[in-house]
């Protein structure tokens, strides 16, 4: 099996009485595209938030690229977020008073130093070379999502985490965004994508399904462009 970049051990997250994640064991190989599906409230976004260092588990461990993320101090967790992960949101979350270019540079600024040429190249790579100086309000949903993807990629993160990246897009823009994801995957990026859309889920190398905070199904889609990773997941049914 290929080298794991993400590994969770009995990962749990409870909110009071609610068990959002319940002992999830998961491995994601470097360069793998993993889709996470499941009904609302199944724990998909909670899993993604913990993988991205935005939230902390209440039990279990998370290792990313050999680092035990669960034990990081807040300061180191912030560094983990800016150096290791790239986040793509369903709502795009662009800063309204910054241009497309500046929104990408913002991630560079928090990482180390803003570099306009690099940011411009990142936006050109997602086909936005004509929209660099536009504010988010002047961009379509698909264009905003592409800015969001460029921002997620600008610091060359080890993993890209996307939460319903096509959830707010029309069919044409969905296709553009998915095409970018396909290219990223082909270039060797590790993608973990939470989605409701079965079509998006089937594009991944592997698809896991969460229910009540547990992985209830893991299936390989059999079209791994690079490698097929056999999941080692704990099946749990409640």
């Amino acid at each position: 099996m290929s080298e794991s970049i993400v590994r969770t051990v009995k990962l749990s997250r409870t909110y009071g009485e609610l068990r959002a994640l319940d002992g999830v064991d998961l491995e994601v190989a470097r360069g793998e595209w993993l889709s996470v599906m499941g009904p609302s409230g199944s724990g998909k976004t909670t899993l993604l938030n913990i993988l991205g260092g935005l939230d902390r588990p209440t039990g279990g461990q998370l290792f990313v690229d050999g680092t035990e993320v669960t034990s990081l101090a807040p300061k180191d967790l912030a560094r983990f977020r800016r150096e290791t992960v790239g986040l793509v949101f369903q709502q795009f979350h662009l800063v309204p008073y910054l241009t497309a270019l500046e929104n990408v540079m913002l991630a560079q600024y928090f990482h180390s130093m803003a570099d306009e040429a690099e940011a411009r190249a990142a936006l050109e790579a997602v086909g936005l070379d004509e929209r660099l100086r536009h504010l988010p309000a002047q961009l379509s949903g698909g264009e905003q999502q592409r800015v969001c993807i460029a921002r997620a990629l600008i610091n060359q993160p080890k993993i890209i985490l996307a939460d319903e990246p096509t959830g707010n897009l029309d069919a044409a823009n969905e296709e553009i965004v998915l095409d970018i994801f396909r290219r990223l995957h082909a270039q060797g990026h590790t993608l973990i994508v939470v989605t409701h859309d079965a079509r998006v889920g089937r594009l991944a190398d592997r698809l896991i399904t969460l229910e009540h905070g547990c992985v209830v199904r893991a299936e390989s889609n059999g079209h791994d462009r690079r490698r097929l990773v056999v999941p080692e997941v704990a099946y749990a049914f409640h």
Partner: protein
Amino acid sequence: MRFAWRVLLGSLHHQRLRLSIAALAMALGSALVSGLLNLSGDIGSQVGRELRAYGANLVIRPREQSARLGSGGLEFGAATAAQTLVEADLERVNQVEGVIDYVPSLYAVVQLEQRPVVLAGVGLAAARSLNPWWQVLGRWPATDDEVLAGARAAEALGIKPGEAVSVSYGDQIRTVRMVGVLETGGAEDEQIITGLRAAQTLTAQPGRVGLVMVSALASDRSLEAIARDLQAALPQAEVRTLAQFAQAEATVLNKVRLLIGLVAALVLLAGALTVAGTLHIIVMERRTEIGLMKALGANDRRVAGLFLVEALSIGAAGGLVGYLAGLALAIGIGQRVFQTTIAPAAWAPPGTLLIALGVALLASLLPVQRALAVDPVKTLRGE
């Protein structure tokens, strides 16, 4: 750093209306601070000068004296002209820092139409200038043979302006013309007032003075310090402060400063609350943006820095506008209240700006704490 400015300017422009209101509130407080700072340099002098209208606040007399003397309702002893000062020595009085002017005088008990009365020879020009409330019915003496009669003295002696009367001192007899009735409400009302030179000639004491009333400005230096300097300049004389004036002056000055200071503090507090409220609303409205910044890896220092710099921008804008408004206020007060031009105090601009920045910084502490407490998971989910 250049990019940080772009973010800051973008953010300020994005919220310009709300921030302008907060800056305006700061400007109001700063205007009072600026007015206070600009006036406090000059107000001491101005109030001091106003109080100077109530007469001198220092008296210089020979070391030993037995004459009953008085001015402005104050008794300084009794005069016999046995002890006097050399008039030429008084040149040194004007060289003492804080001294505005002085009135040299020479007292003698003379016979006027065979009745004893105190003749006060005074420096008439200085006396008019330092005692603006002195009322003269008629006119001031223009020559050495003209005199003023105190209101009660004129009544007691039965003399009227325009009348010529004879004055004798020892074997010297002179005829003088009474040209006006003087009313001061003090001891002068019972005296005959003439020029110093005339009194010196009549009493055969050329170049001598018996008493010197000094008006000093005690805003920058204490009256006691000025008195000490005068004493050092005139070792043969005795210098005393008129404690009543010194205390009244200090009390009024302190009350004026306290009043302006209190009003400025209250308005600044109101400004601080407005800034705090505005920043709090901004933080609430920008929770998603703060959550995003945290998700992108911004540490607390970066997030806090953004809001602190915005708060400082409010403080700087408010402080700058407030300084200019306060300067205009000070100049207006100077012209309308003190009838003088207030010179801008050199330390008013940095003082106003520093106070405005400090208040804005303090006002931002709670909103910044609120910003740091933003949970990116919740805000990015739209909660």
